């Protein structure tokens, strides 16, 4: 190198990941870089809850002297699986609060980060709803693990076709993932105070709805709605709520900083 050419600027290399799609996919990869919290933990929890239930059923069946001595639907009212659906909210909050500042430090824009995270959540919802539906199919094929049990497609979904089971799972997962995304961004922007206000607001809405329903004597009508409306319709009703959560998360994240 001679004296004159030290100042020559390096020619920028052809940008490899410069397309918007590539940038968004890289955020997805960032989320999977450490797969434990998003891909390992939820399954582990699911199977742990299931194993616990299985143990209880076996114990009850043994005490009763055989499954045939029990009511046919004894093991079908089970809410165990709903925990995993709600847990997706935690997964989303964790995933975003863990990687946001790191991604920002790696020169990722908030837009790309949010779109990548949203894509990741949609992919996770597809993965988990499909996985749970497949296991639910096995459950039915084995006559409820030989116990007449219904864990992966419990009461409410027990009679429904597998496609409905899958759709309900998908819609529920999406709802809780994006609820989690919205909560995570509230946390990022305003920390604990943001969450206080958020959950206080939520409580006010719930209590107010209760009051309105009571005041207008509408409880029977509400009950009627849930009994008469199919699970598919109820699941479909969550989609607009999910969309609102997703939009709120995006709007809030656009102004989040590395200090948050």
């Amino acid at each position, binding site marked *: 190198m001679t004296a004159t050419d030290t100042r020559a600027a390096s020619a920028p290399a052809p940008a490899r990941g410069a397309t918007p799609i590539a*940038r968004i996919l890289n955020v997805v990869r960032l989320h999977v870089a450490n797969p*434990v919290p998003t891909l390992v933990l939820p399954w582990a929890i699911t199977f742990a809850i299931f194993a616990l239930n299985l143990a209880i059923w076996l114990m009850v069946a043994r005490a009763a002297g055989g499954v045939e001595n029990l009511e046919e639907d004894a093991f079908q009212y089970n809410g165990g699986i709903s925990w995993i659906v709600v847990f997706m909210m935690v997964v989303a909050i964790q995933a975003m609060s863990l990687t946001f500042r790191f991604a920002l*430090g790696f*020169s990722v*824009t*908030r837009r790309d980060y949010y779109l990548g995270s949203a894509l990741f959540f949609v992919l996770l919802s597809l993965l988990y709803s499909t996985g749970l539906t497949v296991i639910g199919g096995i459950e039915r094929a084995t006559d409820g693990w030989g116990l007449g049990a219904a864990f992966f497609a419990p009461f409410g979904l027990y009679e429904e076709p597998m496609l409905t089971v899958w759709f309900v799972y998908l819609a529920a997962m999406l709802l809780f993932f994006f609820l989690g995304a919205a909560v995570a961004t509230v946390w990022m922007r305003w920390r604990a105070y943001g969450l206080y206000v958020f959950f206080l607001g939520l409580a006010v809405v719930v209590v107010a709805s209760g009051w309105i329903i009571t005041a207008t004597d509408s409880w029977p009508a509400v009950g009627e709605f849930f009994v008469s409306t199919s699970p598919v319709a109820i699941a479909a009703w969550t989609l607009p709520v999910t969309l609102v959560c997703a939009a709120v998360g995006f709007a809030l994240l656009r102004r989040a900083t590395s200090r948050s």
Partner: protein
Amino acid sequence: MTTVVEAEGLTKRFGKVTALDNVSFSLEEGAIHGLLGRNGAGKTTLMNLLTAQDFASDGAVRIFGASPVENATALRRVCFIKESQVYPDDFKGKHVLRSAPWFFDNWDAEFAQRLVAAFDVPLDRKMKKLSRGQRSAIGVIVGLASRAELTFLDEPYAGLDAVARRRFYDLLLEDYAAHPRTIVLSTHLIDEAADLLQRVVVIDQGRVVIDADADELRGSATTLVGRASDVDAFAAGRDVIDRTTMGGIASVTMTGLSDEDRRAASAAGLEAASVSLQELIVNRTGGRAGLDPSAQEDAA
């Protein structure tokens, strides 16, 4: 020469605290710049604004001629390494180095490996379990191996020992020579880094107090020591930036002395000594905070 970084009237307020106050400067392409100042002077805040990690309260930032805010095209050419960088829980060094090439187009994996060996960092240990120096080393590795056109290194060697710091300076110079780019080095270890810097921007209490060529600053100030009456006679009408007295002896630091002036001072029986970059910056950033020069005047 092309301007890569421009700040215009940049102001950042956190509640009632003004962290940056009407900061304006620009940085040219293809040089190692120094962003100097005391801890808490506003250096990190400034770099957060320049890289759109935070938003300005007022004023404008341009990098590569455009606002960096949500500007993926501009930001992809930028790498900002800071001591306060947060890593995802359970992330190990290897995860950091594995994900870096996804975001930095010029990433050189081979060079990164060389740097890992040079700094001897364990890659298989969780980031939060690493010592401060080891975490800094990971940051330095990412900052250098990313070869971003515009690289900000904010206190990159916090916790590194003298040997590792020297290794960093050597590797920085070597790689900069082979791959010229714009580097902004922020540090409070002015003495050590001074020789590497071409241009120096000094921030004090959120304001730019010096923005000059490093070599022009060196030797721009002179300290004269001698009998107080002689020193004061010589200093009269000159740009005095510091003055101390001890008994009948005065030491006065002033700028703008020519070689002639220095010879004249020496002929007048005064000891003349050039002021180092470090001393000059310390002087300009409140080196004698709490010691009001006028109060000393009275005491003398």
